[in-house]
C-alpha cells in the first residue's frame, strides 16, 4: 500500500514510518501542510491508497493537517484519510464524517503505541471503513445518556454500541467481549430496533448510522 504520512515531529515521524514499513507499506513522509496537499493531489504521482495525517502541522501550527486532508477529500472524494491528533474534538470528528462516505479515521496519537490496533485501524480505513477514537465515542455516549436518547439499552448493548461506533466489525466486537458472533448479531438487531435505526447490510453504513444517531 502507498501511504502518505504527514507528521512534523521527527521522532514520531520516524517511528510511524518504521511501523508502517514493517507491515509492508510504501511510505511517503512529509512534515508540513502544503507538501501534504501536494503529495495527496499531485497528478503526476499515482494516487496514494491512504493518508495518515497529524492535525497540527507547520507552517501555521494550527489545524493545517486536518484542513489539507479535508481539502484533498473534496478534490479526491473517498480518498482514505486517517487523522491523528494530540487531542480529540467532536467538531473535527463531525467535519471528517460530514461527507457520509466513510474511509475516514480519527484517533488520538496515543493509540499508535498499540501497534497492532493501529495497523488494524490503518487497514480498515484504507478498505473504506470508519474508525473513531474511543474517546470521541465515549463523549458521544455520555451526551446521549444525559439526554436520555439511549436510556432503554442494556449495559451489554451499550458496550456493543460503543464498539460499533468505534468502527469495529461484528467479529471484532465478539472477540473483544468474548461473545459468539450470533450473540453479537442478536444484540445488534435489538439495539437497532430500540434506537429505530434502519439496519443496513453494509458494515460501514451501519457504523456511520450509529455515529450519526449519537452525534445528533
Amino acid at each position: 500500500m502507498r501511504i502518505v504520512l504527514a507528521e512534523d515531529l521527527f521522532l514520531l515521524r520516524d517511528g510511524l514510518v518504521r511501523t508502517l514499513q514493517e507491515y509492508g507499506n510504501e511510505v511517503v513522509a512529509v512534515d508540513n501542510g502544503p507538501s501534504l496537499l501536494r503529495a495527496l493531489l499531485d497528478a503526476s504521482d499515482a494516487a496514494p491508497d491512504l493518508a495518515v495525517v497529524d492535525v497540527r502541522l507547520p507552517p501555521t501550527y494550527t489545524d493545517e493537517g486536518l484542513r489539507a486532508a479535508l481539502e484533498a477529500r473534496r478534490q479526491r472524494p473517498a480518498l482514505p484519510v486517517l487523522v491523528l491528533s494530540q487531542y480529540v474534538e467532536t467538531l473535527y470528528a463531525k467535519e471528517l464524517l460530514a461527507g457520509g462516505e466513510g474511509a475516514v479515521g480519527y484517533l488520538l496519537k496515543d493509540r499508535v503505541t498499540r501497534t497492532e490496533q493501529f495497523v488494524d485501524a490503518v487497514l480498515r480505513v484504507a478498505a473504506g471503513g470508519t474508525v473513531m477514537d474511543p474517546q470521541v465515542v465515549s463523549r458521544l455516549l455520555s451526551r446521549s445518556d444525559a439526554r436520555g436518547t439511549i436510556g432503554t439499552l442494556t449495559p451489554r448493548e451499550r458496550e456493543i454500541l460503543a464498539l460499533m461506533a468505534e468502527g469495529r466489525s461484528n467479529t471484532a466486537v465478539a472477540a473483544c467481549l468474548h461473545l459468539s458472533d450470533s450473540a453479537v448479531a442478536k444484540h445488534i438487531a435489538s439495539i437497532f430496533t430500540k434506537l429505530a435505526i434502519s439496519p443496513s447490510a453494509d458494515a460501514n453504513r451501519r457504523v456511520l448510522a450509529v455515529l450519526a444517531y449519537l452525534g445528533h
Partner: protein
Amino acid sequence: MFDKPRALVSRAGTALGRCQVAGLHAVAVWVTGALVVSALLLLPVGAGLWLLPPTARRLRALSDRSRTRAAKWTGLHVSGPEPPHGDVPARDARARARAVLADEGFWRDLAWAWVEPLVGGLLVAVPLALVEYGAFGVLVQPFIWRLLGDGNWYAFVPVHDSSTVFAALALGLALMAAGLLMAPAVLRLHARTGRPLLSASRGARLARRVEHLADTRARAVDTLSAELRRIERDLHDGAQARLVALGMTVDRATRLLETDPGAARELLLDVRTTSEQALADLRALVHGIHPPILTDRGLGDAIRSLALDSFLDAHVEARLPGRFAAPVESAAYFAVSEALANAAKHSAAREVRIVLTHAGGLLRATVTDDGRGGADPSRGTGLLGVRRRLDTFDGTLTLHSPHGGPTTLTMEIPCALSSPKTSSC
C-alpha cells in the same frame, strides 16, 4: 402603516412630559442650591455647620437623580463623583462640615445648581411654552376673541374676525406640533449641557480608573500565579510522577529480560499503560490552560465544539468577522464554558442558545437557556471567577434570571479584531 406616526406622537408626548419633570426638577435644584449657599453664608456664625451637611446631601440626591434620568431618558451615561465619605463621626458637626467642604463633588454640585436652573430649566421650558401657548391659541382664542375686541393679538396675528381666528387656530396647532416634535431633541440637549458639571472631574475620573486598573492588575497577577502553581502541582503529581514510574519499570524489565522474559513482557505492557495515562494527564492539563481548538480555529469553532459536547441542546450563532487576541478569546471561551456548565447543572434547561457578535469594538457573548431561572449570581464561585477574568479586559458580565426563566448571561469585552478573517472555514 399607522404605527409609525402613532409611535412618533407617543414618543414626543413622553418627551414633553419629561421636559415638564425636568423643569420642576430645575426649580427644586434652584431652591436647594439657594439653601446650600445660605448654609455656607451661615458657617461663620455656627448655624451653617448644622445646615450644610443635610443640604449638601439633598443637593447630591438631586444631581444623582439627574444622572440616572440622563441615562434612562437619553442613554447618556454620566459617571458621577464619588459618594461622600461615610466614616466621619456623626456627632462632630465641625468635622462633617469640613468633610463636605473638602469633597470635590460638592463644589461641582454647587456649580451645577447655579447653571442647571438657568440653562437646563430654560431649555426644557421652550417646548413646554410652545405647546402651552399653542394650546391657548387653539382652545381659548376661539371663545374669547369677541370679548377682547380690537386690541386682541395672538402672537403676530391680530384676532378680530372669523378668518383671523382660523389663522390663530392654525398657528396654535403649528406651535403645538413644533413644541412636541422638538421635545426629544431638547431633552437630549439638556442631558448634554448638564454633563460637564454632573460628571466627576477629570482628575477624579482618572483616579478612579487608576484604582480600578491597580485592582484588576493585582487580581490578574494573583490569578496567574495561582494558575502557574496549579500547573506546577499537576505536572509534579501527574505526568512527572508517571514518567519516573515508567523509567523504573523499564529498568526492572531490562533486568528481567534474560531471566524471566514473561515477567519482562508484563512490565513493558504496564509501561505502555502508564505512558498513556501520562499523556491523558498532559492533555487534560493543556486543555485547562488553553484549549488547542481555540488556537486552531478561534472562538467561534471552539464554542461550537463546546456546544457539541454539551449535555444540552446547544445552538451556536457566531457572527465574528475574524480573530481576537489570544487572551481575549480564552477569557470569552472559559466564560461561555462556565455559563454552559451552569445551565446544565442548575437550570433544568433543555436548550441553550449562544450568540457571539462583534460590533462597535465590543465582543459580546450571550448564553440563554430555557430553564427555570432564579439564578443567583452571588452563589457559586464560578461566575465570580469569570467576572474577575473579564474585569482584566474591562469586560462586564450581566445575569438576567427572573423566576420561571429564561436565564440570559451576557458577557461583553471591549476589544479590537487582531486579524480579519482570511478564509471561509
